[in-house]
């Protein structure tokens, strides 16, 4: 096996250091996603925002 190039090593390091998130699509599989309104307050996904 040929030794890795610097670019390959950099790509591997980036992949290892990628602090990925659990995919929000998976969150939505069970039920519709709540909508974040403020901080950690959530509203129903189909709820209309109150007029300002």
């Amino acid at each position: 096996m040929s030794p890795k190039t610097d670019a390959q090593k950099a790509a591997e390091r980036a992949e290892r250091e990628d602090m990925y998130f659990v995919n929000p699509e998976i969150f939505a599989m069970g039920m519709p996603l709540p909508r974040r309104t403020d901080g950690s307050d959530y509203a129903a996904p189909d709820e209309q925002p109150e007029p300002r």
Partner: protein
Amino acid sequence: MPRTGNPDYVVDADRGSGSTAAKRARLVDADAYSDRVGTREGLRQLDAMTEQMPGLNRLQRDRERIMPRGTTADLGHPRMERKLPGAADVRQPLSARQRNARSKARLETARAIPLAQLRAQRDLVTRPDRWQATNDALSEQTGDVQALPAADQVRIRRIDRAIQAYERRNDRGHVLYANVQMPFYINDGNLHGFMTNNFEPGRRISFDRYTVATHQLHETAGQVHDPRGRVVTFEMQTRRGAYLGHSDKVDSTAHLLPRGMEFEVAGVHQASYRTPEGRTKTRLVVQLRDVTPGS
């Protein structure tokens, strides 16, 4: 004396096809449930026999095992084993120090393990199709990985080894939160009674699937839209699993629990929790203690 659950059916919290946001409980025929409990016991006995088999090294035993072994490091200090909070305790967000330490261990693990393991773990929690297919297959086979196609076995064992690699670096205990959606006829009027009747203290429950949890009740509670009030949160004390959250810069404390876990119910109560903004809210929780053999 509280009424026990229906003698004909058992609520299996892990049997429905759920998501990382919530497991889906399903009513299971009592005889079928007993069969599944017996099957799991048989699989664990096979694992015990594998452990006794002479002439195999640890790697070979791991390859032959059906359920992944727990590989947790020794506790750094007795206080690092986190205990389940009391019914009156207010659950707080995880401290910055805790998040930073766990995030550092996550990064150290990611730098050390083979890329194939890292990719298998990432695919599981970032690809919805992968999450669903893997967990449904495990649940269908009552956790028997050897009953799955060879390619799936390879992938699942890579995920198991990635989790174990984190466990080996982790000298802390965890209290974790995961949502469970109860069957369709449950709502906020009968949820508490349904849970106390069907999750009595001392009952054992099994998770054949992987479980995504968080370290913060406010974070888990915010992950589901629950207008009918049929979602409860499991509060689990364990030393197992891998942190997939971030440092104190982001409100993200996800944690991937391995498949093949067993818990004992410690109680059901309405728990208060505090959000990062300082508000106090409540949530129905079922407290569970990890009793997985070999953990």
